[in-house]
């Protein structure tokens, strides 16, 4: 299978993934929007996924558990902030749903129909400094540092 247009870019506090899928934007959007589809591809290999509940509307919450191959369960909570059918999905990661201010990062998924297929662009935006001050130390700190890894990496290249 030939896949073109696959790239990952790290830019400031964003990671951008671009991919071409040989299916319509409609279908691609559909498999992002329904628990029975998500269960088929969302989990890493060896993981299974249980959706506790999913409200695929603006402001709606998707709570799910990823069951690891080692028997460990990972709780996840996502809030959809802006949905436009076959066009885009914006959501926020609310971590494990245990804490109110447990924001990890935001994601923007954009579907763009090109002929028979679809270009998918996904942006992960890591929290700003203001947000960081709110989040718990462990996650907040890790997320915050990542904004600057791009810069640090450049300097490290010089050192190598």
């Amino acid at each position, binding site marked *: 299978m030939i896949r073109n247009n696959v790239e990952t870019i790290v830019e400031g506090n964003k990671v951008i993934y671009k*991919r071409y*899928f040989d299916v319509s934007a409609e279908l691609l959007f559909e498999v992002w929007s329904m628990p029975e*589809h998500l269960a088929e*591809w969302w989990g*890493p290999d060896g993981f299974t996924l249980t959706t506790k509940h999913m409200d695929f509307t603006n402001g709606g919450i998707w709570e799910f558990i990823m069951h690891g191959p080692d028997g460990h369960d990972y709780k996840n909570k996502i809030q959809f902030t802006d949905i436009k059918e076959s066009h885009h999905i914006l959501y926020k990661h609310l971590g494990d749903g245990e804490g109110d201010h447990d924001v990890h990062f935001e994601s923007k998924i954009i579907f763009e129909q090109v002929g028979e297929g679809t270009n998918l662009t996904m942006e992960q935006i890591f929290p700003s400094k203001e947000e960081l001050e709110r989040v718990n130390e462990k996650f907040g700190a890790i997320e*915050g*540092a990542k904004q600057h890894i791009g810069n640090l990496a450049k300097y*490290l290249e010089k050192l190598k």
Partner: protein
Amino acid sequence: MNAFAALADDTRREIVRLVAKNGELTSTEIGQNFKISPPAISHHLKILKSAKVLNMKKEAQKRIYSLNGSSINEMEDWLLDIIDLWNKRLDKLDRYVLKVKKERAHDKK
């Protein structure tokens, strides 16, 4: 404080950039690049050293700082893990949607 927390501060990130660019710098040389007081600089350096972002060696009266590559690598690894997870996930998505597409085409026949 871990390396990630240590780098959540603007001044400390600037210090790290400066040290990374120059290889080695004394605390005095670092301080000359900032408008903040020497005690404040030394506080930041202490945090960066205890978080293992910077290494420090003493020569006579001087404290010389350099970058601790392994901590930085740890952070890079962390980010790369996320990127890797998503790339794998998108691979899986690709396989899955093609399967669905095929099934639906088949159903129409």
